């Protein structure tokens, strides 16, 4: 007798709810993680590996569906098909595509790339997925045996309940924090008239950066966020010379909440801190920014703060009166509220996934990791960072023609004596 396995379905987690509603032409809400191997990818083995791991990730190999009141995600019946990578990174997923499969698995030369619709998971959950995919691929291709550690999951067992939970609901505090905030400065340029996403990646030696960080006694993220604020300040000084028109420069830094709570969820579980400098007060020197950011981040990044922000975010979701509003009305309202309050509150998002650690046996087959994050709603650029084997990969994607920010950011690093190698998807 054949046992029909029911397709598992899940509600969207608290952070994911906004993404389907707030999709626009210029806000794709797609991010990409890539792993580059030492040899060319065999698509058939890749397809088999996807098949092998699919059941282990019932919250990632999914499609988005709409219920009467909320969206939900549902396991796909078929295994996602691997496709050759096209020239357009992180293309917008049309609803018709999201409703078939909300994840794309791509290959190009030595590289496997996975593009996720942000409702499924955050960068950390995605990293577990791509590590496990790479491990399974290596096992299938080279017959090696990869231990189940460092984020490589055991695909012979079933998905664990805690991996599928919405940790926001579980760990949210009781007292909501105030949401009020002022608008941030955002540079702008000529909108791209094509859907191509220009991508610029800077490759740095992590030891160079660490040396600079220890000079100031701060973390890599704090240091790079300060470089970013300094670069944006130089753009603002050129574009908005009048002091009274200046708006604060705010850097949106996603925070992995798994570092605060014992959660092993593979779904979204991130919040953010937004260190800022008020450029109305005058020109900030770099060391002023570093010091200020270091303290601002330490001040905001506490468990109590995080739990109260979570409480604010889940409050509306738990309100019974709001829950019964039909989905299409929710969409309109959420979009409007988001456009009014959303990402205008920060100048840019920098998502740092940190240093990728793998089981030792995998290291000799793998060259590098890349992480690409598309720009948030109204922001002109997206910036994402990942590091592996002593190299730091800083990727910029933009939706304006001018690479102002990329240039300002990387030349700032160069002036600080850090060697930067630039790559791009345009030659």
């Amino acid at each position, binding site marked *: 007798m054949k046992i029909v396995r029911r397709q598992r379905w899940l509600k969207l987690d608290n952070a994911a709810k906004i993404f389907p509603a707030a999709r626009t032409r210029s806000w794709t809400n797609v991010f990409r993680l890539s792993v*580059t191997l030492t040899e060319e990818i065999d698509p058939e083995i890749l397809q088999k590996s996807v098949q092998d791991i699919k059941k282990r990730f019932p919250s990632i190999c999914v499609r988005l569906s709409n219920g009467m009141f909320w969206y939900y995600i549902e396991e796909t019946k078929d295994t996602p098909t691997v496709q*050759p*990578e*096209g*020239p*357009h*990174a992180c293309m917008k997923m049309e609803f018709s595509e999201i409703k078939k499969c909300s994840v794309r698995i791509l290959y*190009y*030369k030595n*590289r496997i790339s996975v593009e996720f619709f942000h409702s499924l998971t955050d960068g950390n959950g995605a990293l577990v997925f791509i590590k496990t995919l790479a491990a399974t691929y290596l096992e299938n291709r080279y017959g090696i045996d990869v231990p189940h550690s460092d984020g490589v999951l055991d695909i012979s067992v079933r998905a664990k309940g805690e991996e599928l939970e919405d940790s926001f609901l579980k760990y949210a505090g009781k007292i909501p924090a105030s949401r009020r905030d002022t608008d941030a400065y*955002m540079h*702008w340029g000529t909108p791209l008239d*094509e*859907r*191509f996403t*220009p*991508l*610029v990646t*800077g490759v740095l030696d992590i030891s160079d950066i660490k040396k600079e960080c220890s000079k100031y006694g701060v973390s890599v993220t704090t240091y790079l966020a300060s470089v970013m604020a300094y670069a944006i300040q130089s753009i603002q000084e050129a574009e908005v010379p009048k002091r009274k*028109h200046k708006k604060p420069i705010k850097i949106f830094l996603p925070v992995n909440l798994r570092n605060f709570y014992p959660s092993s969820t593979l779904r979204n579980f991130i919040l953010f801190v937004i260190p800022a400098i008020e450029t109305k007060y005058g020109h900030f020197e770099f060391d002023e920014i570093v010091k200020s950011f270091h303290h601002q981040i330490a001040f905001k990044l506490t468990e109590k703060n995080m739990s109260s922000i979570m409480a604010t975010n889940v409050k509306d979701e738990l309100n019974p009166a709001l829950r019964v509003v039909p989905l299409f009305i929710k969409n309109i309202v959420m979009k409007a509220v988001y456009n009014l309050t959303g990402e205008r509150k920060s100048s840019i998002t920098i998502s740092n996934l940190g240093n990728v650690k793998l089981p030792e046996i995998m290291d000799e087959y793998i060259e590098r990791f890349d992480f690409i994050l598309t720009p948030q709603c*109204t922001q002109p650029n997206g910036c994402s960072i990942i590091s592996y084997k002593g190299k730091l990969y800083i990727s910029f994607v933009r939706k304006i023609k001018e*690479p102002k920010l*990329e*240039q300002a950011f*990387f*030349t700032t690093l*160069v*002036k600080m004596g850090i*060697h*930067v*190698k*630039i*790559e*791009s*998807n*345009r*030659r």
Partner: protein
Amino acid sequence: MSYCVNCGVELAEYIKKCPLCSTEVINPNQPYDFANTPPYPEYEPITKQRVSIKTMLGILAVIFAVPIAVCLVADLSDSMLTWSGYIISSLFTIYTIIVSALVIHRRSVLLEQIFDYGAISLLLIYIEYQSKGGWLLSFALPLLGGIALSTLFVTFLAKVLNKRILTVISFASFVLGALCVLCDFLIKFNFYNSISIGWSLYPLISLTAIGTVLIVIDSNSYLKRRLAKKFFI
């Protein structure tokens, strides 16, 4: 290994132009090697499938031929062509407008409009000739001429002089105000036998005000950027 002389960053081997500042990479010691394989697929623009214009014109001709034939047959049943002339000439006018949109549009928008207005005036002349209404020279043609001149002027501003969108809109509202006055005048002159203007002053004043506001916004770049950010679609 080449560096950008402007930014000071090292550039990957396959790069010909600095992605940050567009400065070309010229390294006499290391000419560009086309064997370098870039880590991303070659860029191709996203193209949409297009139906050829000839097929479209053919299909349209068939679509228009059917009602024309039906009208002719129905009208000929009492052995004289009477009402079908109006329908056929209107259909011809519509067809010419569609053809000009498909064929002439890509060459010149101005020429397309001239062509369209020509077709419409031919239709008007035909109706006047058939119905002997006596309104063509004193009313219809001056009004059509006014409309034609205004749209041609606005198109000229937008497409030929490439003025900014706000400038174009403000001039369009000035012209629209003037058109209201013309229309008002012609109606009064033709049907009430008086040389005066009345209601058209209200749209004239408000459209002029809107146009002026837009010109002011257009000349203030800070205000404009702010508005563009707030209202982008």
